[in-house]
């Protein structure tokens, strides 16, 4: 049905009009299988191309930042991977190392992941609405090649919806799906990207032709365009009169996406902007006290026994055969450093605070572990992931990486990790372990 042109992609991947049709039965021409069932006059290649192109930008940002997040988790160190290893890709993640250089690196990459991901959802809904007649196209199977394309589309749309739904539920803290979020979201993105490459190879010529014919944005200027129903199944053969223009429809969806992006940016940038993050999961302000900032996981959730954090608490610092045990008073007697660093959560929110404590590298020096490649951090935490984390060389050796004892000039609250917590520039939030009781330099 789609006309052939002579661009590179069309020559390489275009359908053969003389192809043999496999002996598959066709659905009867009733209901949605009848082309005249589809009435909307705004459906057509231009709307799909425009929405798809905007969606593509958002998806590329999500894919790149999602991959970077996996790198940031340093999954090849210790138990950092939490659920599944990286299989044959282990070499890649062993080779890539997350830097400690720019303190806001993860806050920015992961903030973008969630901002673009959330903002993409209205675009995805419009995109799927615009192509729904294709789902019911006849003949259902035109050729073996067509059958392969349609099977790939099932994986494409399934994985797209899967990624957005699981991501959206994850940031809202609801897990009704009965599988572990991180590996499922990560590997579903492979299914998605694989199908996306085929989809782009097949559809870019159609996008190019539509933009050539109608302009990329001309219909947004309010100009009406005529699309040929013989050219594509999404164009109605017997359209109803228009009830909304292409400009109105794209404007509504685009404005919704923009508003969502602003809301999510509010919880990512934080400060006074958190107040505009109305529906964002971290769009609430806790208060004005020095410890009133977003909590990643409360002491109750981590099952911290308050008795363990009192007088009997001591920090064990270990390197090779050397070992030191430091009370909180011992730690406070060491030279203190104050750094403004963010907690940047994988869920896309961040909060920067002024932390005071002892540089990790100074603690390493005390036991001769300052040349170590890794630092295993262990916590009093009894439940949940990340009760132990391994930091890489860049993180443990950075002068700004602290074992923080205080925040904004006062002692840490229990929910923020009292008696002591890690704060590392540029790392994912959960790698800033709270309620730390043991540091092992070079243990992994």
């Amino acid at each position, binding site marked *: 049905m789609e006309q052939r042109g002579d661009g590179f992609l069309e020559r390489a991947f*275009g359908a053969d009009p003389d192809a043999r049709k496999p002996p598959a039965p066709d659905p009867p021409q009733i209901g949605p299988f009848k082309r005249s069932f589809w009435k909307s006059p705004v459906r057509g290649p231009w709307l799909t191309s425009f929405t798809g192109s905007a969606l593509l930008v958002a998806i590329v940002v999500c894919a790149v930042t999602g991959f970077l997040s996996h790198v940031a988790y340093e999954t090849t160190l210790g138990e950092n991977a939490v*659920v599944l290893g990286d299989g044959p890709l282990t070499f890649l993640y062993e080779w890539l190392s997350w830097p400690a250089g720019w303190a806001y690196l993860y806050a920015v990459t992961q903030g973008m992941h969630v901002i673009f991901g959330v903002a993409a959802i209205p675009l995805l809904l419009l995109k*799927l609405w615009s192509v729904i007649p294709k789902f019911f196209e006849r003949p259902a199977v035109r050729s073996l090649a067509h059958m*392969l*394309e349609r099977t790939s589309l099932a994986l494409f749309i399934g994985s797209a919806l899967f990624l957005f739904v699981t991501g959206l539920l994850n940031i809202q803290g609801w897990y009704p799906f*009965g599988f572990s979020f991180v590996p499922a979201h990560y590997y579903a993105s492979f*299914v998605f990207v694989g199908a996306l490459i085929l989809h782009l190879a097949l559809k870019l010529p159609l996008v190019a032709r539509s933009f050539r014919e109608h302009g990329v944005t001309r219909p947004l200027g309010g100009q009406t365009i005529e699309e040929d129903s013989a050219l594509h199944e999404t164009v109605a053969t017997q359209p109803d009169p228009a009830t909304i223009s292409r400009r109105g429809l794209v404007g509504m969806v685009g404005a*919704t996406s923009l508003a969502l992006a602003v809301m999510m940016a509010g919880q990512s940038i934080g400060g006074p902007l958190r107040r505009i993050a109305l529906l964002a*999961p971290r769009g609430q302000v*806790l208060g004005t006290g020095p410890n009133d900032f977003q909590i990643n996981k409360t002491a109750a959730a981590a099952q911290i026994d308050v008795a363990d954090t009192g007088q009997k608490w001591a920090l064990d610092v270990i390197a090779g055969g050397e070992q030191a045990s430091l009370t909180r008073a011992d730690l406070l007697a060491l030279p203190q450093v104050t750094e403004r660093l963010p907690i940047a959560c994988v869920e896309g929110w961040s909060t920067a605070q002024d932390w005071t404590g002892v540089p990790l590298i100074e603690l390493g020096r005390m036991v001769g572990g300052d040349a170590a490649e890794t630092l295993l951090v262990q916590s009093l935490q009894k439940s949940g992931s990340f009760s132990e984390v391994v930091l890489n060389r860049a993180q443990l050796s950075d002068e700004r990486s602290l074992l923080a004892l205080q925040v904004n000039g006062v002692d840490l609250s229990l929910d923020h990790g009292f008696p002591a917590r890690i704060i590392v520039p540029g790392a994912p939030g959960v790698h800033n372990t709270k309620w730390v009781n043991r540091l092992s330099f070079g243990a992994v």
Partner: protein
Amino acid sequence: MSGRFSREYGASPAHLVLGLASFAIAGFAILQLSALPTLVNVLIWLFGAVIAHDFILLPIYAGIGRGGIAITRWSATLYPGEREVGSIEVFNHIRIPAIVSGILLLMFFPLIFGVAEESFKLTTGLSTEVYLGRWLAIVAVLFAGSGLLLALRLVRRRRDRGRLGDHADDQ
């Protein structure tokens, strides 16, 4: 390009190679996930999402939209003298805020309805109870803004009509 392969398969060998490569990536991902005891749930959600969208969500919202248009057109026949009754323009000033409100509800219903209140409280130390009010406030602002815009449009049109006589309607 109508060689024998192309006629039998329906496209060039490059198409088949790219298609198989794309399935190989999906196969690799599913193979990696098969280490999880819950792989079947992943697959249910993956394919269930297509069914839930294409056969439940889309027909419901498209049906509501068509129903709204049908009611609008029908109401136009009741008061043939009144141009604003049964006008699609007026309908759109209801439809657009309704769609935007609906998208926000669809995306954030776990927070809005406090579905995961207990775990949210345990994780963040905060309650989800503010979200219903916030969503309702957004809905109210959207409808009020849309209504105000419509009122301004109608007032301006009446004024123009008064100035130009009935010719304005012919344009």
